[in-house]
Protein backbone atom coordinates (compact mmCIF):
# COMPACT_ATOMS: atom_id res chain seq x y z
CA UNK A 1 0.00 0.00 0.00
CA UNK A 2 1.22 3.50 -0.69
CA UNK A 3 0.10 7.05 -0.10
CA UNK A 4 -0.13 9.52 -2.95
CA UNK A 5 2.57 12.12 -2.47
CA UNK A 6 2.96 15.01 -4.88
CA UNK A 7 6.55 15.69 -5.87
CA UNK A 8 7.39 19.20 -4.79
CA UNK A 9 10.70 20.84 -5.64
CA UNK A 10 10.69 22.16 -2.08
CA UNK A 11 10.77 18.60 -0.76
CA UNK A 12 13.59 17.67 -3.14
CA UNK A 13 15.50 20.60 -1.71
CA UNK A 14 14.66 19.37 1.80
CA UNK A 15 16.22 15.99 1.00
CA UNK A 16 19.42 17.77 -0.09
CA UNK A 17 19.50 19.65 3.22
CA UNK A 18 18.98 16.39 5.12
CA UNK A 19 21.80 14.73 3.17
CA UNK A 20 24.32 17.44 4.06
CA UNK A 21 23.02 17.45 7.65
CA UNK A 22 23.84 13.74 8.01
CA UNK A 23 27.32 14.25 6.51
CA UNK A 24 27.98 17.07 8.99
CA UNK A 25 26.58 14.96 11.84
CA UNK A 26 29.21 12.34 10.95
CA UNK A 27 31.90 15.02 10.85
CA UNK A 28 30.78 16.24 14.27
CA UNK A 29 31.16 12.75 15.73
CA UNK A 30 34.59 12.15 14.14
CA UNK A 31 35.86 15.47 15.52
CA UNK A 32 34.36 14.61 18.91
CA UNK A 33 36.20 11.28 18.94
CA UNK A 34 39.49 12.98 18.03
CA UNK A 35 39.02 15.58 20.79
CA UNK A 36 37.98 12.90 23.31
CA UNK A 37 41.08 10.85 22.50
CA UNK A 38 43.31 13.94 22.82
CA UNK A 39 42.06 14.31 26.40
CA UNK A 40 43.58 10.89 27.10
CA UNK A 41 46.67 11.23 24.90
CA UNK A 42 47.49 14.94 24.59
CA UNK A 43 50.39 14.20 22.22
CA UNK A 44 48.01 12.84 19.59
CA UNK A 45 48.15 15.19 16.56
CA UNK A 46 49.75 17.85 18.78
CA UNK A 47 50.68 20.90 16.70
CA UNK A 48 49.10 19.22 13.69
CA UNK A 49 45.47 19.24 14.63
CA UNK A 50 45.20 20.53 18.19
CA UNK A 51 42.42 19.84 20.67
CA UNK A 52 41.18 23.42 20.40
CA UNK A 53 40.63 23.00 16.65
CA UNK A 54 39.01 19.57 16.95
CA UNK A 55 36.67 20.88 19.63
CA UNK A 56 35.82 23.96 17.56
CA UNK A 57 34.95 21.91 14.48
CA UNK A 58 33.04 19.42 16.68
CA UNK A 59 30.77 22.15 18.04
CA UNK A 60 30.46 24.14 14.81
CA UNK A 61 29.52 20.99 12.90
CA UNK A 62 26.84 20.32 15.54
CA UNK A 63 25.31 23.77 15.15
CA UNK A 64 25.46 23.69 11.35
CA UNK A 65 24.06 20.16 10.86
CA UNK A 66 21.14 21.04 13.09
CA UNK A 67 20.50 24.24 11.15
CA UNK A 68 20.63 22.27 7.91
CA UNK A 69 18.17 19.72 9.26
CA UNK A 70 15.87 22.49 10.57
CA UNK A 71 15.88 24.32 7.24
CA UNK A 72 15.34 20.98 5.47
CA UNK A 73 12.40 20.20 7.76
CA UNK A 74 10.83 23.59 7.00
CA UNK A 75 11.24 23.12 3.23
CA UNK A 76 9.68 19.68 3.67
CA UNK A 77 6.67 20.92 5.64
CA UNK A 78 5.92 24.05 3.63
CA UNK A 79 4.16 22.51 0.58
CA UNK A 80 2.16 20.10 2.77
CA UNK A 81 1.06 22.85 5.12
CA UNK A 82 0.34 25.53 2.51
CA UNK A 83 -0.84 23.27 -0.31
CA UNK A 84 1.44 24.96 -2.87
CA UNK A 85 5.00 24.74 -4.12
CA UNK A 86 7.41 26.94 -2.15
CA UNK A 87 7.59 30.43 -3.65
CA UNK A 88 11.07 31.29 -4.95
CA UNK A 89 12.25 27.70 -4.74
CA UNK A 90 14.94 28.25 -7.41
CA UNK A 91 16.41 31.03 -5.28
CA UNK A 92 16.19 28.69 -2.28
CA UNK A 93 18.06 25.99 -4.20
CA UNK A 94 20.75 28.50 -5.19
CA UNK A 95 20.98 29.46 -1.51
CA UNK A 96 21.54 25.80 -0.59
CA UNK A 97 24.50 25.46 -2.96
CA UNK A 98 25.98 28.78 -1.84
CA UNK A 99 25.62 27.81 1.82
CA UNK A 100 27.10 24.36 1.27
CA UNK A 101 30.04 25.80 -0.65
CA UNK A 102 30.60 28.36 2.11
CA UNK A 103 30.42 25.72 4.85
CA UNK A 104 32.89 23.51 2.94
CA UNK A 105 35.37 26.37 2.54
CA UNK A 106 35.00 27.40 6.20
CA UNK A 107 35.59 23.83 7.43
CA UNK A 108 38.64 23.42 5.16
CA UNK A 109 40.06 26.70 6.48
CA UNK A 110 39.38 25.58 10.07
CA UNK A 111 41.20 22.30 9.42
CA UNK A 112 44.06 23.47 7.18
CA UNK A 113 44.74 27.06 8.28
CA UNK A 114 43.25 26.90 11.83
CA UNK A 115 44.44 30.27 13.21
CA UNK A 116 45.91 33.51 11.94
CA UNK A 117 47.58 36.63 13.32
CA UNK A 118 45.51 38.96 15.49
CA UNK A 119 44.52 41.21 12.62
CA UNK A 120 41.32 42.31 10.97
CA UNK A 121 42.15 40.04 8.00
CA UNK A 122 41.99 36.93 10.24
CA UNK A 123 38.53 37.92 11.42
CA UNK A 124 37.37 38.32 7.83
CA UNK A 125 39.04 35.27 6.32
CA UNK A 126 39.93 32.65 8.97
CA UNK A 127 38.10 32.77 12.28
CA UNK A 128 36.11 35.37 14.21
CA UNK A 129 37.39 33.90 17.44
CA UNK A 130 34.08 33.80 19.31
CA UNK A 131 33.32 30.42 20.80
CA UNK A 132 30.61 28.52 18.86
CA UNK A 133 30.35 31.37 16.32
CA UNK A 134 33.83 31.11 14.84
CA UNK A 135 32.72 31.49 11.22
CA UNK A 136 34.79 34.22 9.52
CA UNK A 137 33.08 37.49 8.69
CA UNK A 138 32.64 36.77 4.97
CA UNK A 139 30.84 33.52 5.84
CA UNK A 140 28.75 35.32 8.47
CA UNK A 141 27.45 37.69 5.83
CA UNK A 142 26.89 34.83 3.40
CA UNK A 143 24.97 32.84 6.02
CA UNK A 144 22.80 35.90 6.72
CA UNK A 145 21.98 36.29 3.00
CA UNK A 146 21.08 32.59 2.65
CA UNK A 147 18.93 32.67 5.78
CA UNK A 148 17.15 35.76 4.45
CA UNK A 149 16.38 33.83 1.24
CA UNK A 150 15.01 31.01 3.38
CA UNK A 151 12.89 33.45 5.41
CA UNK A 152 11.61 34.97 2.15
CA UNK A 153 10.71 31.48 0.86
CA UNK A 154 8.71 30.72 4.00
CA UNK A 155 6.93 34.07 4.26
CA UNK A 156 6.09 34.36 0.56
CA UNK A 157 4.75 30.79 0.47
CA UNK A 158 2.61 31.13 3.57
CA UNK A 159 1.22 34.49 2.35
CA UNK A 160 0.26 32.95 -0.99
CA UNK A 161 -0.95 29.52 0.18
CA UNK A 162 -2.98 28.22 3.10
CA UNK A 163 -1.95 29.51 6.52
CA UNK A 164 -1.96 27.13 9.48
CA UNK A 165 -1.07 27.56 13.13
CA UNK A 166 2.13 25.62 12.50
CA UNK A 167 3.29 27.91 9.68
CA UNK A 168 2.29 31.04 11.61
CA UNK A 169 4.43 30.00 14.59
CA UNK A 170 7.23 29.06 12.20
CA UNK A 171 7.14 32.53 10.62
CA UNK A 172 7.24 34.27 14.01
CA UNK A 173 10.09 32.04 15.13
CA UNK A 174 12.14 32.65 11.99
CA UNK A 175 12.11 36.40 12.53
CA UNK A 176 13.67 35.85 15.95
CA UNK A 177 16.05 33.13 14.70
CA UNK A 178 17.40 35.23 11.82
CA UNK A 179 17.37 38.52 13.72
CA UNK A 180 19.26 37.19 16.74
CA UNK A 181 22.12 35.96 14.58
CA UNK A 182 22.95 39.61 13.87
CA UNK A 183 23.70 40.11 17.59
CA UNK A 184 26.71 37.82 17.14
CA UNK A 185 28.18 39.81 14.29
CA UNK A 186 29.45 42.96 16.00
CA UNK A 187 32.16 43.61 18.52
CA UNK A 188 32.37 45.94 21.47
CA UNK A 189 35.67 46.71 23.17
CA UNK A 190 34.28 45.74 26.61
CA UNK A 191 34.42 41.94 27.10
CA UNK A 192 31.38 41.92 29.40
CA UNK A 193 29.27 43.79 26.86
CA UNK A 194 30.61 41.58 24.11
CA UNK A 195 29.64 38.44 26.00
CA UNK A 196 26.27 39.98 26.85
CA UNK A 197 25.34 40.20 23.15
CA UNK A 198 27.07 36.96 22.26
CA UNK A 199 24.70 35.12 24.64
CA UNK A 200 21.79 36.59 22.75
CA UNK A 201 22.73 34.29 19.88
CA UNK A 202 23.83 31.27 21.89
CA UNK A 203 21.18 31.17 24.58
CA UNK A 204 18.23 32.72 22.80
CA UNK A 205 18.76 30.50 19.79
CA UNK A 206 19.00 27.31 21.79
CA UNK A 207 16.61 27.90 24.67
CA UNK A 208 14.02 30.00 22.87
CA UNK A 209 13.97 29.95 19.06
CA UNK A 210 15.29 26.41 18.57
CA UNK A 211 12.91 25.09 21.24
CA UNK A 212 10.01 26.76 19.45
CA UNK A 213 11.23 25.37 16.11
CA UNK A 214 11.23 21.92 17.72
CA UNK A 215 7.70 22.59 19.00
CA UNK A 216 6.66 23.27 15.39
CA UNK A 217 8.28 20.01 14.23
CA UNK A 218 6.69 18.01 17.05
CA UNK A 219 3.28 19.46 16.17
CA UNK A 220 3.75 18.54 12.50
CA UNK A 221 5.13 15.12 13.45
CA UNK A 222 2.22 14.30 15.79
CA UNK A 223 -0.25 15.15 13.02
CA UNK A 224 1.54 13.09 10.36
CA UNK A 225 2.73 10.13 12.42
CA UNK A 226 -0.08 9.75 14.99
CA UNK A 227 -2.89 11.48 13.08
CA UNK A 228 -3.37 13.77 16.05
CA UNK A 229 -6.11 16.39 15.76
CA UNK A 230 -4.62 19.52 14.15
CA UNK A 231 -6.73 22.00 16.12
CA UNK A 232 -5.67 20.49 19.43
CA UNK A 233 -2.02 20.20 18.47
CA UNK A 234 -1.91 23.79 17.22
CA UNK A 235 -3.62 25.12 20.32
CA UNK A 236 -0.96 23.37 22.39
CA UNK A 237 1.75 24.70 20.19
CA UNK A 238 0.68 28.25 21.04
CA UNK A 239 0.56 27.51 24.77
CA UNK A 240 3.98 25.85 24.72
CA UNK A 241 5.47 28.67 22.67
CA UNK A 242 4.17 31.16 25.23
CA UNK A 243 5.66 29.15 28.09
CA UNK A 244 8.97 28.60 26.27
CA UNK A 245 9.44 32.28 25.50
CA UNK A 246 8.13 33.25 28.95
CA UNK A 247 10.80 31.22 30.75
CA UNK A 248 13.51 31.00 28.07
CA UNK A 249 14.13 34.68 27.38
CA UNK A 250 14.97 35.73 30.93
CA UNK A 251 16.36 32.26 31.68
CA UNK A 252 19.35 33.68 29.79
CA UNK A 253 20.26 35.14 33.18
CA UNK A 254 22.05 31.89 34.11
CA UNK A 255 24.69 32.79 31.50
CA UNK A 256 25.07 36.29 32.92
CA UNK A 257 26.10 35.11 36.41
CA UNK A 258 29.88 35.38 35.99
CA UNK A 259 30.63 37.64 33.04
CA UNK A 260 30.64 40.93 34.92
CA UNK A 261 26.97 41.86 34.62
CA UNK A 262 25.13 43.33 37.67
CA UNK A 263 24.27 40.93 40.51
CA UNK A 264 20.53 41.22 39.97
CA UNK A 265 21.04 38.71 37.15
CA UNK A 266 21.56 36.08 39.87
CA UNK A 267 17.94 36.38 40.99
CA UNK A 268 16.54 36.79 37.47
CA UNK A 269 18.61 33.89 36.17
CA UNK A 270 17.75 31.61 39.09
CA UNK A 271 14.00 32.32 38.94
CA UNK A 272 13.49 31.99 35.19
CA UNK A 273 15.90 29.08 34.82
CA UNK A 274 13.89 27.26 37.47
CA UNK A 275 10.76 27.94 35.40
CA UNK A 276 12.30 26.52 32.21
CA UNK A 277 11.25 22.92 32.98
CA UNK A 278 7.58 24.01 33.30
CA UNK A 279 6.88 23.90 29.51
CA UNK A 280 8.28 20.38 29.58
CA UNK A 281 5.56 19.44 32.07
CA UNK A 282 2.97 20.66 29.57
CA UNK A 283 4.60 18.65 26.80
CA UNK A 284 4.73 15.54 28.98
CA UNK A 285 1.02 15.70 29.85
CA UNK A 286 0.18 16.32 26.22
CA UNK A 287 2.32 13.48 24.82
CA UNK A 288 1.06 10.93 27.37
CA UNK A 289 -2.52 12.03 26.71
CA UNK A 290 -2.14 11.71 22.94
CA UNK A 291 -0.40 8.34 23.17
CA UNK A 292 -3.18 7.08 25.43
CA UNK A 293 -5.90 8.36 23.11
CA UNK A 294 -4.32 6.83 20.01
CA UNK A 295 -3.36 3.57 21.72
CA UNK A 296 0.15 3.88 20.31
CA UNK A 297 -1.10 3.61 16.67
CA UNK A 298 1.48 5.18 14.41
CA UNK A 299 2.31 4.98 10.71
CA UNK A 300 6.04 5.54 11.03
CA UNK A 301 7.76 3.37 13.65
CA UNK A 302 11.31 4.78 13.48
CA UNK A 303 10.13 8.41 13.46
CA UNK A 304 7.88 7.71 16.45
CA UNK A 305 10.76 6.08 18.33
CA UNK A 306 12.87 9.19 17.81
CA UNK A 307 9.96 11.41 18.92
CA UNK A 308 9.67 9.38 22.14
CA UNK A 309 13.41 9.69 22.78
CA UNK A 310 12.95 13.41 22.17
CA UNK A 311 10.30 13.75 24.88
CA UNK A 312 12.42 11.97 27.48
CA UNK A 313 15.79 13.22 26.23
CA UNK A 314 14.62 16.82 26.34
CA UNK A 315 13.31 16.28 29.85
CA UNK A 316 16.50 14.62 31.11
CA UNK A 317 19.06 16.71 29.21
CA UNK A 318 17.52 20.15 29.45
CA UNK A 319 15.39 19.58 32.58
CA UNK A 320 17.30 17.34 34.98
CA UNK A 321 20.89 18.09 33.93
CA UNK A 322 20.06 21.75 33.53
CA UNK A 323 18.37 22.18 36.89
CA UNK A 324 21.15 20.28 38.70
CA UNK A 325 23.49 23.25 38.28
CA UNK A 326 21.41 26.21 37.18
CA UNK A 327 21.12 27.95 40.56
CA UNK A 328 23.92 30.54 41.02
CA UNK A 329 24.95 29.13 44.41
CA UNK A 330 26.08 25.86 42.78
CA UNK A 331 26.71 27.16 39.27
CA UNK A 332 29.73 29.09 40.50
CA UNK A 333 31.41 25.71 41.06
CA UNK A 334 30.30 23.97 37.87
CA UNK A 335 30.29 26.72 35.24
CA UNK A 336 32.51 25.81 32.28
CA UNK A 337 33.47 22.43 33.75
CA UNK A 338 32.81 18.98 32.27
CA UNK A 339 29.48 19.18 34.11
CA UNK A 340 28.42 21.76 31.55
CA UNK A 341 29.68 19.52 28.74
CA UNK A 342 27.58 16.63 30.11
CA UNK A 343 24.47 18.84 30.19
CA UNK A 344 25.25 20.09 26.67
CA UNK A 345 25.64 16.60 25.21
CA UNK A 346 22.34 15.27 26.53
CA UNK A 347 20.35 18.46 26.02
CA UNK A 348 21.40 18.94 22.38
CA UNK A 349 20.81 15.29 21.66
CA UNK A 350 17.55 14.99 23.57
CA UNK A 351 15.98 18.24 22.51
CA UNK A 352 17.20 18.64 18.93
CA UNK A 353 19.08 15.73 17.32
CA UNK A 354 16.27 13.28 18.08
CA UNK A 355 13.43 15.30 16.57
CA UNK A 356 15.50 16.20 13.50
CA UNK A 357 16.36 12.56 12.83
CA UNK A 358 12.66 11.75 13.31
CA UNK A 359 11.83 14.35 10.67
CA UNK A 360 14.26 12.67 8.26
CA UNK A 361 12.31 9.42 8.66
CA UNK A 362 9.03 11.26 8.09
CA UNK A 363 10.44 12.73 4.87
CA UNK A 364 11.73 9.35 3.67
CA UNK A 365 8.35 7.74 4.30
CA UNK A 366 6.32 10.38 2.55
CA UNK A 367 8.81 10.90 -0.28
CA UNK A 368 8.55 7.21 -1.13
CA UNK A 369 4.78 7.03 -0.67
CA UNK A 370 4.96 4.39 2.06
CA UNK A 371 1.72 4.17 4.02
CA UNK A 372 3.16 2.39 7.04
CA UNK A 373 6.88 2.33 7.70
CA UNK A 374 7.90 -0.09 10.41
CA UNK A 375 11.12 -0.03 12.38
CA UNK A 376 13.78 -2.42 11.13
CA UNK A 377 16.25 -4.10 13.45
CA UNK A 378 18.82 -1.58 12.16
CA UNK A 379 16.51 1.32 13.13
CA UNK A 380 16.16 -0.10 16.63
CA UNK A 381 19.88 -0.73 17.05
CA UNK A 382 20.66 2.76 15.77
CA UNK A 383 18.33 4.61 18.15
CA UNK A 384 19.36 2.36 21.06
CA UNK A 385 23.12 2.64 20.55
CA UNK A 386 23.10 6.38 19.95
CA UNK A 387 20.92 6.95 23.01
CA UNK A 388 22.99 4.66 25.24
CA UNK A 389 26.17 6.28 23.91
CA UNK A 390 25.02 9.83 24.58
CA UNK A 391 23.63 8.93 28.01
CA UNK A 392 26.92 7.18 28.83
CA UNK A 393 28.95 10.21 27.74
CA UNK A 394 26.71 12.44 29.83
CA UNK A 395 27.11 10.37 32.99
CA UNK A 396 30.88 10.08 32.45
CA UNK A 397 31.28 13.83 31.92
CA UNK A 398 29.11 14.52 34.97
CA UNK A 399 31.46 12.44 37.13
CA UNK A 400 34.47 14.30 35.75
CA UNK A 401 32.67 17.60 36.24
CA UNK A 402 31.88 16.67 39.83
CA UNK A 403 35.59 16.20 40.51
CA UNK A 404 36.30 19.58 38.93
CA UNK A 405 33.64 21.28 41.04
CA UNK A 406 34.88 19.60 44.21
CA UNK A 407 38.66 19.69 43.78
CA UNK A 408 39.43 22.47 41.31
CA UNK A 409 36.78 24.99 42.32
CA UNK A 410 35.90 24.30 45.98
CA UNK A 411 39.14 22.94 47.47
CA UNK A 412 41.66 24.90 45.42
CA UNK A 413 39.55 27.99 44.65
CA UNK A 414 39.74 27.78 40.85
CA UNK A 415 43.52 28.20 40.82
CA UNK A 416 45.98 27.07 38.15
CA UNK A 417 47.24 24.33 40.50
CA UNK A 418 43.71 23.25 41.28
CA UNK A 419 42.97 22.89 37.58
CA UNK A 420 45.82 20.45 37.00
CA UNK A 421 45.29 18.52 40.25
CA UNK A 422 41.65 17.96 39.28
CA UNK A 423 42.69 16.91 35.77
CA UNK A 424 44.84 14.19 37.29
CA UNK A 425 42.27 12.88 39.77
CA UNK A 426 41.31 9.24 39.25
CA UNK A 427 37.57 9.86 38.99
CA UNK A 428 38.17 12.64 36.47
CA UNK A 429 40.37 10.54 34.21
CA UNK A 430 38.07 7.53 34.46
CA UNK A 431 35.16 9.74 33.41
CA UNK A 432 37.18 10.96 30.44
CA UNK A 433 38.03 7.35 29.45
CA UNK A 434 34.39 6.33 29.63
CA UNK A 435 33.38 9.38 27.60
CA UNK A 436 35.57 8.13 24.74
CA UNK A 437 34.21 4.58 25.02
CA UNK A 438 30.64 5.86 24.92
CA UNK A 439 31.57 8.14 22.03
CA UNK A 440 32.59 5.05 20.06
CA UNK A 441 29.23 3.43 20.91
CA UNK A 442 27.49 6.58 19.63
CA UNK A 443 29.51 6.49 16.42
CA UNK A 444 28.61 2.84 15.76
CA UNK A 445 24.96 3.79 16.26
CA UNK A 446 25.42 6.64 13.79
CA UNK A 447 26.79 4.26 11.13
CA UNK A 448 23.74 2.05 11.59
CA UNK A 449 21.50 5.11 11.36
CA UNK A 450 23.06 6.08 8.01
CA UNK A 451 22.58 2.55 6.74
CA UNK A 452 18.96 2.59 7.87
CA UNK A 453 18.19 5.99 6.35
CA UNK A 454 19.58 4.78 3.03
CA UNK A 455 17.81 1.40 2.95
CA UNK A 456 14.59 1.58 4.96
CA UNK A 457 12.42 2.87 2.09
CA UNK A 458 13.44 0.01 -0.17
CA UNK A 459 12.84 -2.53 2.59
CA UNK A 460 9.44 -1.07 3.49
CA UNK A 461 8.34 -1.16 -0.15
CA UNK A 462 9.52 -4.75 -0.53
CA UNK A 463 7.64 -5.68 2.66
CA UNK A 464 4.46 -3.98 1.42
CA UNK A 465 4.65 -5.78 -1.93
CA UNK A 466 5.31 -9.22 -0.46
Amino acid at each position, binding site marked *: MSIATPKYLSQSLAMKYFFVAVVLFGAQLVMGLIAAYQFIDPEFLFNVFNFSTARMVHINALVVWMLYAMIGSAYWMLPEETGIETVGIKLGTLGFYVLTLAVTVVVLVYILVQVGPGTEASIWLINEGREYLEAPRWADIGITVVVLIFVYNVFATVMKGKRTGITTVLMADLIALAGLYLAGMFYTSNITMDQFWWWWVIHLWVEATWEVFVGVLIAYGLIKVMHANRQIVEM*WLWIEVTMLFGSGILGMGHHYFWIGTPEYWWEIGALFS*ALEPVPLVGML*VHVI*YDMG*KHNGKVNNGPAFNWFIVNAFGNFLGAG*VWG*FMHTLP*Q*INIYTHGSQFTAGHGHLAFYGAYATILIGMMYVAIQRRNGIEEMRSTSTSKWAVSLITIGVLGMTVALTLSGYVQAFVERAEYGATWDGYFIAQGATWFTQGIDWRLAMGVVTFIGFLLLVKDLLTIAKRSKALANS
Partner: protein
Amino acid sequence: MEYLDPESFLGIFASAAAVIMFGAIYVGIFTLVKIEKIKPLYIALAYLAWGVQTYSMVMLGTLVKSDPFTVKILVAAMVGYLLVPHFIYFLVHRTHERFEHN
Protein backbone atom coordinates in the same frame (compact mmCIF):
# COMPACT_ATOMS: atom_id res chain seq x y z
CA MET B 1 26.41 34.85 48.23
CA GLU B 2 27.77 32.39 50.78
CA TYR B 3 30.29 29.76 49.77
CA LEU B 4 28.98 26.23 50.02
CA ASP B 5 30.41 23.29 51.90
CA PRO B 6 31.90 20.93 49.26
CA GLU B 7 30.51 18.02 51.28
CA SER B 8 27.03 19.22 50.36
CA PHE B 9 27.65 19.11 46.58
CA LEU B 10 26.42 15.56 46.14
CA GLY B 11 23.25 16.35 48.09
CA ILE B 12 22.69 19.46 45.97
CA PHE B 13 23.06 17.64 42.66
CA ALA B 14 20.95 14.70 43.87
CA SER B 15 18.15 16.85 45.31
CA ALA B 16 18.06 19.07 42.20
CA ALA B 17 17.80 15.99 39.97
CA ALA B 18 15.14 14.56 42.31
CA VAL B 19 13.04 17.73 42.00
CA ILE B 20 12.76 17.23 38.25
CA MET B 21 12.59 13.41 38.26
CA PHE B 22 9.86 13.16 40.90
CA GLY B 23 8.08 16.03 39.17
CA ALA B 24 8.00 13.92 36.01
CA ILE B 25 6.85 10.85 37.93
CA TYR B 26 4.05 12.88 39.54
CA VAL B 27 2.91 14.25 36.18
CA GLY B 28 3.25 10.89 34.42
CA ILE B 29 1.25 8.86 36.94
CA PHE B 30 -1.32 11.63 37.33
CA THR B 31 -1.97 11.76 33.58
CA LEU B 32 -2.07 7.97 33.18
CA VAL B 33 -4.67 7.71 35.97
CA LYS B 34 -6.71 10.51 34.42
CA ILE B 35 -6.84 8.87 30.99
CA GLU B 36 -7.68 5.56 32.71
CA LYS B 37 -4.59 3.70 31.56
CA ILE B 38 -3.80 2.62 35.12
CA LYS B 39 -5.97 2.03 38.20
CA PRO B 40 -7.22 5.12 40.12
CA LEU B 41 -5.56 3.99 43.34
CA TYR B 42 -2.17 4.80 41.77
CA ILE B 43 -3.03 8.48 42.18
CA ALA B 44 -1.71 8.07 45.72
CA LEU B 45 1.70 7.29 44.24
CA ALA B 46 1.47 10.45 42.14
CA TYR B 47 0.89 12.61 45.19
CA LEU B 48 3.59 10.72 47.07
CA ALA B 49 5.99 11.61 44.23
CA TRP B 50 4.94 15.24 44.58
CA GLY B 51 5.65 15.00 48.32
CA VAL B 52 9.16 13.66 47.65
CA GLN B 53 9.64 16.38 45.06
CA THR B 54 8.65 19.06 47.57
CA TYR B 55 10.96 17.58 50.21
CA SER B 56 13.79 17.54 47.63
CA MET B 57 13.14 21.19 46.80
CA VAL B 58 13.28 22.21 50.47
CA MET B 59 16.45 20.17 50.88
CA LEU B 60 17.98 21.86 47.83
CA GLY B 61 17.02 25.29 49.11
CA THR B 62 18.58 24.53 52.50
CA LEU B 63 21.78 23.03 51.09
CA VAL B 64 22.43 26.03 48.85
CA LYS B 65 21.98 28.18 51.97
CA SER B 66 18.89 30.06 50.86
CA ASP B 67 17.43 32.33 53.53
CA PRO B 68 14.29 31.09 55.35
CA PHE B 69 12.02 33.43 53.39
CA THR B 70 13.26 32.00 50.06
CA VAL B 71 12.62 28.47 51.32
CA LYS B 72 9.02 29.49 52.08
CA ILE B 73 8.72 30.85 48.55
CA LEU B 74 10.00 27.53 47.21
CA VAL B 75 7.33 25.64 49.16
CA ALA B 76 4.68 28.01 47.77
CA ALA B 77 6.05 27.29 44.29
CA MET B 78 5.66 23.58 44.93
CA VAL B 79 1.99 24.11 45.81
CA GLY B 80 1.76 25.78 42.41
CA TYR B 81 3.45 22.75 40.86
CA LEU B 82 0.85 20.53 42.53
CA LEU B 83 -1.87 22.41 40.65
CA VAL B 84 -0.16 22.86 37.26
CA PRO B 85 -0.78 19.31 35.91
CA HIS B 86 -4.47 19.57 36.96
CA PHE B 87 -4.79 22.78 34.98
CA ILE B 88 -2.91 21.47 31.94
CA TYR B 89 -4.90 18.23 31.95
CA PHE B 90 -8.13 20.21 32.21
CA LEU B 91 -7.15 22.25 29.13
CA VAL B 92 -6.06 19.19 27.12
CA HIS B 93 -9.16 17.21 28.03
CA ARG B 94 -11.61 20.02 27.30
CA THR B 95 -10.03 20.80 23.94
CA HIS B 96 -10.12 17.13 22.96
CA GLU B 97 -13.80 16.96 23.92
CA ARG B 98 -14.57 20.16 22.06
CA PHE B 99 -12.85 19.22 18.81
CA GLU B 100 -13.36 15.47 18.74
CA HIS B 101 -17.10 15.58 19.41
CA ASN B 102 -17.79 18.28 16.81
